[in-house]
């Protein structure tokens, strides 16, 4: 496992695509700094609002970019035939699957960190300062960001499972984008709602669950939407962790059953 990870990380750091996203973020910060350097700055910004801005970017862009890069790396091994060299050196194919997810998780974590730093830098550039007006909410926001990162890793695990089954990079890219832009989960919710309108599965899904993290919207008698108390945070963590483990185990089982080439 360690040997495969060393090889995969070496390959990752030699892959130009890995640096594309951080490079774009860095250029974004640079251009923002140049454009606002002579302008007037806005007042102070609450760190909670910084997290709010990060959450949108992490969900849509960071998971998508991390997922696409992960699929690209896996697909290259099959396209170039290098999977033969890898599969030949391990006694169990599941080792390769776990190594792939670890690299995918690393990509997701790094990109999340870069995304947060980018938004923080831009906020610092645009505002006179970053303050903490609601310190009791900071840890909640950090926890939510980490949860989003874990959800992103679970999405990568889901796509890894599909990749092991179908060995199709096109399917992997499509699924990543459909999940990140909430198409796939939206379709699932609609299908379930057709079966029984009272069944609300959105709060149990990987990406949609974040719509319920501040409260569960319900319609009252007059048709107004009110927010009920959200599920405890640990339920989100547990749910996401279960998804991750299930997808990883399924991917490992499939990889053991299928031929490497």
């Amino acid at each position, binding site marked *: 496992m360690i040997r495969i990870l060393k090889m995969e990380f*070496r390959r990752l750091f030699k892959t130009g695509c890995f640096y594309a996203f951080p490079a774009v973020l860095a250029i974004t910060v640079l251009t923002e700094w140049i454009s606002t350097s002579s302008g007037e700055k806005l007042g102070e910004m609450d760190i909670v609002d910084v997290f709010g801005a990060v959450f949108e970017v992490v969900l849509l862009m960071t998971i998508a970019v991390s997922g696409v890069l992960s699929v690209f790396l896996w697909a290259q091994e099959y396209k*170039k*035939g290098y999977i033969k060299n890898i599969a*030949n050196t391990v*006694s169990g194919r599941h080792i390769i699957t776990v190594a792939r997810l670890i690299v995918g998780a690393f990509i997701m974590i790094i990109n999340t960190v870069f995304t947060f730093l980018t938004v923080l830098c831009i906020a610092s550039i645009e505002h006179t300062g970053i303050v903490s007006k609601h310190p009791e909410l900071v840890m909640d926001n950090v926890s939510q960001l980490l949860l989003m990162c874990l959800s992103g890793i679970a999405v990568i695990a889901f796509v890894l499972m599909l990749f092991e089954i179908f060995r199709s990079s096109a399917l992997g890219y499509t699924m990543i984008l459909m999940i990140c832009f909430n198409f796939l989960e939206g379709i699932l919710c609609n299908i379930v709602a057709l079966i029984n309108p009272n069944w609300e599965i959105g709060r149990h899904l990987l990406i949609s669950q974040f719509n319920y993290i501040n409260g569960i919207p319900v319609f009252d008698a007059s048709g107004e939407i009110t927010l009920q108390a959200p599920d405890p945070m640990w339920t989100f963590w547990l749910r996401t962790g279960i998804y991750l483990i299930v997808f990883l185990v399924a991917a490992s089982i499939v990889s053991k059953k299928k031929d490497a080439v």
Partner: protein
Amino acid sequence: MEYIIETENLTKQYGKKKALDNVSIHVAQGDIYGLIGRNGAGKTTLMKIICGLSRQSGGSYSIFGKRDGELGDIASRRGLLIESPGIFGEYDALTNLTLKCRLIGITDKEEPERLLKMIGLESAGKKKAKHFSLGMKQRLGIGIALAGNPDIVVLDEPINGLDPQGIIEIRDIIMRLNKENGTTFIISSHILDELSKIATKYGIINNGNLIEECLATDLNSRCESRIELVVDKAAAAVNVLEKLGFSDMKVVEDGKIHIFEQFDRTGDISLALAAEGITVFEIVRKLESVENYYLRLVGKESE
């Protein structure tokens, strides 16, 4: 005898088609095992299973006495080049070799450079592998297979695309590693005459079945290689040949004798017969090639 690689009734089925049907091969330490068979015979399928790239439908195999699924670290003592070389086109040769070294736990920077020199690609420099010629890619694939001095190397058509000098160089590498390190090779090739120069054992596969497995020395004797002798006195000639130590011979017709052993003693035969006053009209050494033997065998199998 203990075998380093042994398969037991190995079967691989794709749908209704059996790519391998109860194949049992035995490869001893230090063998250069030549796998012979036509396209689609099952050679590559067998190699893939031994290298862990494919799962068998039935039967089992063992490497160093360990069954598949229990190989552990032994798995990394195999090197392979199957079908196309597995290389990353966006990296140069040295980087490709370095990645393979990392994969098998070798961090010594000299090892990739040693391999690069061994396969004759030092002059490739920073050229990306995707710009390599077919022969250069093949050399790189062989280098990757030989990384870390594996105990077992599986080569599927290793001389594809190589120039004559490259073929000789690869043959020399194989022979040297086999002699110096005791490396065991399993090699498939369509160029049987080239394979016959190095193989110590053969496995002949046809339609997924192992139709013959024998040592190279046994194959030579089965190849109906012979010395054809035409003399004026066949009976007297037989007596002379018996005194010279020949026993495996046959008088095929009046004056014509076929000798099936000691093919390098045509000089002794001529001198001995002349000394006894027997006229030798013709003495010809006919060595049937492995290729002809294989075609004859497969032809019989088809019947």
